[in-house]
């Protein structure tokens, strides 16, 4: 496959996801009084975010497919930067996938819950972060790095090295994840379960 086709697909998904992320962040920002007069735009922004993130996520899967069509899986796995690109691409899809799942599962009323709205905005921004990382690595592979990896490197992760954690750290993450789930599902909090369900709809 001509590498240019992968570039075209990547530009489409990037544009869609940037637009969707901006709309999602706008939805979160609308809860502040200073923007209250724009709340009439909320239904449109919500739908715009939903549509754009759907488009971007589906095209991201296509983008991963076109990427593997350019370089074989073995050669991709042999490259430290492409390994990182694959990781970032997968996390992009997971993160935006969660956004879409929650939005469809809980409906538009999710934006009326402050914590959930913040989480949705966070998910969209996290997805955008992975999007920039994977695209910046792609630029690096093509010989035109964006420089974003320099910012990432300042956080402690050099994308020229394969990103991985030692086994003890992975086990620690699993323990923390299980602890989080236990904490969450053993909670007998104040809110009436019926009220909780009403949000789910």
């Amino acid at each position, binding site marked *: 496959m001509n590498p240019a086709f992968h570039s075209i697909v990547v530009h489409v998904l990037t544009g869609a996801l940037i637009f969707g992320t901006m709309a999602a962040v706008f939805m979160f920002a609308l809860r502040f009084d200073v923007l209250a007069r724009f709340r009439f735009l909320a239904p449109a922004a919500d739908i715009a975010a939903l549509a754009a993130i759907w488009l971007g996520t589906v095209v991201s899967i296509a983008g991963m497919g076109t990427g593997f069509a350019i370089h074989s899986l073995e050669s991709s796995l042999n490259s430290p930067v492409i390994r990182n690109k694959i990781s970032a691409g997968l996390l992009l899809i997971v993160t935006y996938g969660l956004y879409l799942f929650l939005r469809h599962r809980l409906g538009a009323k999710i934006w009326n819950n*402050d914590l959930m709205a913040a989480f949705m905005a966070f998910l969209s921004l996290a997805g955008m972060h992975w999007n920039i990382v994977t695209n910046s690595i792609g630029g690096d592979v093509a*010989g035109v790095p964006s420089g974003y990896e320099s910012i990432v490197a300042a956080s402690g992760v050099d994308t020229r090295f394969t*990103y991985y954690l030692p086994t003890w750290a992975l086990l620690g993450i699993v323990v923390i994840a299980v602890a*989080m789930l236990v904490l969450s599902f053993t909670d007998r909090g104040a809110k009436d379960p019926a009220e909780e369900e009403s949000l789910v709809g």
Partner: protein
Amino acid sequence: MSPRLIAVIAGAALVTALSLVFASDGVRNGPTGPFGTEQPDTDELLLDLDVQAAYDDDEIIMRFSWETDAPSLYHDVLVYEGGEWVVYGGEADGSMSPLNEDRLTFLLDDGSIDGFEHYGGFMTVYSFTRMMSPEDVDEAESEAGIGQDDLRKMLPETMEDPSDWRTLRSEDEIADLRNAGYFLDLWHWRSHRSNPIGWSDDQFVLDRRRSDDGEGAASTNFDGDLEQPEWMFDPDVTGQYAMSWERMQNLDYTLDDHYYLSPDNAVPFDPDHDWQEGDAIPRRFLTEPEGSRAAIFAQANIDNGRWTVELRRALDTGYPEDDKILREFGRYDLAPAVHAGNTAGRWHYVGMPVTLGLGRSADIEAARFDGDGPDWDAIEPTTMTLFYPGVIGWDYLVDEDTHSGAGAVNANRSFYDAHDEEKMAYYALESEFRDDIISQWGWTTVVWTLFILAVTVAFVHLALRYGRTRTGSETVIREDALRAQESDA
């Protein structure tokens, strides 16, 4: 806010922070690699090398300079232990023995090797080359297969299939390739085995690393029958019968000391001398080289923590089948390497090719001089960044199934289109741990994905309980709009 919700958020933040702090730690920074060898630290992957050049009607002088914290003047040595002479040093297995001489080498081409101008020494090593993988070809197998007991540094065209050493061409074809100029000149300066008597070794790369015709400077100072050295230091000249093993291990000798054996400072070994535990005698005896192999004169010193090495050779050595003949207004490709820090074999620093021009524009422009020698202060050095090359071989680089940049390599596009020296050093280091790293990377990606899912489930479950739900005039999406959306849905 619920303490449990805060705990979930704190847990996510903690994992994120730890994942940054311990990024890519573990496998790469382990004490030993898959070869059981020590690897350079990541901050020791690069080495700057200054290069200058000058020429006159007859000669070219190459001048190299690089930083050295602990210059090594030794190679292999015979140490008196328990009444026997035991060999130490000279190991070419990456074990970082403190007894490997420092070396400076460079490959030189005149345009005969397609691709050398972009890929340099990477064209001479393969996955099957000595010490490139734990499964490299052993001596008996290569001896039986092609009559060579050591596979090191081969040019692609010397094999019918450059990915298979068994397809080495016949001796006649190899000779024809050599006559046609298909070889790389290899200038090989050794701090112990040639430099002390003012010479550099002179070799070339074709179907293997070969020495030019003639005799080299270093011979073995050991009598196998008597199991003792053949030569020892002349105490009248050097003030010592032997060196101190302890001082050698501490790299304590300097260029002004007698750290080598040559006819000028040695006498035949005296077995009746009262040898002491820890007495050490160099295992090499240096004599003036002969023939084509004696084409390169060397002069080196260590000053202010830097090696400076000058190599002088006739432009036309008279041996066109061993050396690349240089001419005024010629432009050549040069790829240097440095063995520093008591390393041997492939545990060295390499540089990508640069051009050398004699009276022509080039990366390194040799200045014309008159008289005995050039004024080096008037010649601007070219600084090259050398890097640790890992186990990346030519068969890997040109195979599209294994190397994502193989298409560019096969199209002979510039190395710098997709890489630079620093990035290449990172890739090279990882190449030694590829399987382990891929496995750890896969697990990391899986665990991170599961962690994100777990955080989401835990957070959402609590957020729905404790998150403030807006009603009435505070809603972001009003109830009538929600009803309209639900109706549409």
